[in-house]
């Protein structure tokens, strides 16, 4: 009577895409928290005084100013920063409009190299100092150079193993986020809020630079050259069906009326869960299955290679479903003496294979928030982590609902800042009081 072949319930694989985007975000936040707590265990004021950047050009915070002065100074800093970012984004839109894609790609490669090489190198130096790791200059230079070069290649050549690419993107996010946490406290918080508001405006207003960029890219069917994290698409084998047919699950996109050339691109994925390929009653999923027919009998690992091999000839197709690549672009300033720019994306969209794409800017600012919370106490870290993940979940739900470009920063940053304040001023006193008296419930 025992059922050997119980049909699989939906609980087996529901929500997998969300987990695949939450995991790297969590890893990035975790690593930034570790870095912050390891490197800042001595006084933080000494290190923050040495960071001179665009973000502190208007006002340098000293601990002797009053709260109101600090707030005004931070506001000034943030306004300057947001203004610079806006100008740079408009320049980016202009360059994209003039089809200087080559230049943009080169510039992105250069900025990734700078981040990995110089920022990564400086952080490695901090770590070496703190832990007295015995390593000589030449080995260090060789290792660092190789690390940076492989990183640049991983991010821009799609022939790399997807895990390496994703790993390097997370590392880039982590490095930039750590540098942002070195800013003074008030400046960091006001900057986060200002950037969240800017993101909201830039993506949703008709005159916003990011919206212009996305619309340009869509109208031209081109890929925006930027740093974006793409979660691996969900595909699994149903062992019950014959031949190990791989089923695909992609997010649903409403069919756009003005699409006429994407019949076999995965532009409009359908949120289906095909039990059998035979019983596939959803005809519009057949387009998806067709283009992936050669991957049907492969498992995950080989699917990755198959996808990579198909990339060259599917370049046009990959760029075509930009209909679903709704992304926002936000060039970020690096906290360097050389204030070079790097082009990183923010915002959430759907990838060509239906996987969720999250801009690297989002990784960075989530991690900045959590890193800053770590500088106060770990209770705030846990609270802010949960708030950010909740915000990300809400944004993903809105993405599934509205099917258009959405800024990923505002909801998460708002919840994160709110929970930070609530935890710091309310929860901590309460919990410490209860705990010290060994009262728990």
């Amino acid at each position, binding site marked *: 009577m025992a059922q050997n072949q119980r049909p699989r*319930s939906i609980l087996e694989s529901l929500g997998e895409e969300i987990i695949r985007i939450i995991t790297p975000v969590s890893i990035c936040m975790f690593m930034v928290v570790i870095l912050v707590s390891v490197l800042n265990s001595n006084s933080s004021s000494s290190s923050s005084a040495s960071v001179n950047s665009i973000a502190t050009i208007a006002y340098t915070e000293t601990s002797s100013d009053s709260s109101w002065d600090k707030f005004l100074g931070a506001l000034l800093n943030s306004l300057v920063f947001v203004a610079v970012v806006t100008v740079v984004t408009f320049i980016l839109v202009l360059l994209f409009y003039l089809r200087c894609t080559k230049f943009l790609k080169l510039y992105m490669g250069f900025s990734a190299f700078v981040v990995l090489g110089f920022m990564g190198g400086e952080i490695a130096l901090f770590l070496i100092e703190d832990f007295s790791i015995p390593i000589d200059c030449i080995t260090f230079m060789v290792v660092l150079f190789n690390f940076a070069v492989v990183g640049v290649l991983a991010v821009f050549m799609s022939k790399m193993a997807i895990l390496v690419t994703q790993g390097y993107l997370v590392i880039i996010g982590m490095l930039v986020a750590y540098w942002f946490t070195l800013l003074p406290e008030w400046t960091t918080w006001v900057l986060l809020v200002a950037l969240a508001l800017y993101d909201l405006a830039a993506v949703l207003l008709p005159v916003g630079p990011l919206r212009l960029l996305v619309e340009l890219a869509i109208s031209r069917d081109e890929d925006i050259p930027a740093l974006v994290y793409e979660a691996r698409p969900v595909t699994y084998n149903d062992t019950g069906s014959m031949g190990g047919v791989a089923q695909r699950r992609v997010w649903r996109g409403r069919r756009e009326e003005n699409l006429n050339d994407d019949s076999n691109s995965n532009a409009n994925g359908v949120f289906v869960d095909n039990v059998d390929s035979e019983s596939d009653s959803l005809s519009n999923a057949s387009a998806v299955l067709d283009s992936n027919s050669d991957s049907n009998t492969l498992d995950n690992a080989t699917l990755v290679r198959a996808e990579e091999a198909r990339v060259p000839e599917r370049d046009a197709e990959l760029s075509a479903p930009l209909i679903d690549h709704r992304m926002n672009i936000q060039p970020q300033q690096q906290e360097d003496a050389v204030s070079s720019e790097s082009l990183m994306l923010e915002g959430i969209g759907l990838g060509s294979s239906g996987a969720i794409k999250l801009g690297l800017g989002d990784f960075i600012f989530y991690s900045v928030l959590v890193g800053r919370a770590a500088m106060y106490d*770990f209770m705030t870290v846990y609270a802010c982590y949960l708030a950010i993940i909740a915000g990300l979940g809400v944004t993903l739900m809105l993405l599934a609902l509205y099917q258009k470009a959405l800024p990923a920063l505002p909801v998460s940053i708002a919840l994160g800042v709110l929970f930070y304040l609530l935890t710091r001023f309310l929860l901590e006193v309460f919990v410490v009081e209860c705990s010290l008296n060994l009262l*728990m419930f």
Partner: protein
Amino acid sequence: MTVAAGIGYALLTLGPSLSLFASVISKKPFLILTVLSSTLLWLISLIVLAGVWRGFLPLKSTSWWPYGLLIFSSVAFQEGLRVLFWKVYKRLEDILDAFADKVSKPHLFLTDKMQIALAGGLGHGVAHAVFFCLSLLTPAFGPATFFVDRCSRIPFFLVSAIISLAFVTIHTFSMVIAFNGYAEGNKVDQLFVPVVHLVAGMATLVNFASGGCMISIPLLYLIAILTLIHCGKMVWRRLIENRGEIGSSQ
């Protein structure tokens, strides 16, 4: 305390949860999302309670009845929130069943529902452990350790970790009992959970007496074991009934 001791205390309180997570929850992405949302919900409950009681803290530590009131109100609020959680879960179950129909898969099995309840309870337990125990550990790394007057034989962190472990167990399995009670309309189960929670909370009041932790900790573990046994019996009964139903309907 040293890093090794700190990690030891953290594993003491979260070890069983971690193994539960690794073996049951991590295999199904939906359950991971349930754990995260449940943890968030209980964090919000703690923040609301902290907001309400903030004006009264720090309480005078001489008399115990303000603390009793604090615990009573907190437990009452959390149990009310549990009912709300159940209602949200019911709606979610309907949505999931509708979705299952759309993709021609079977509705949620009984084991699925119990796993979701377990994930919800694990979220509650993890929230308790993280905020009451772990968050005090991490700032305290260093050469010395800390003892409380009232329980001066073992370090404060160890006491806190042990108590947290009991509470994690109670919370995790109470949720399974509660959801089951609401689903079946079983009054015994529905009352069991709030009563157990209240008794456990009040048991920690015993810690006010000097040396009180000698009594309260075994008491708490007794309650935890009671919860475990009750949950085990209930789950076993339901699974047997379910298998009987499936067998008879085939």
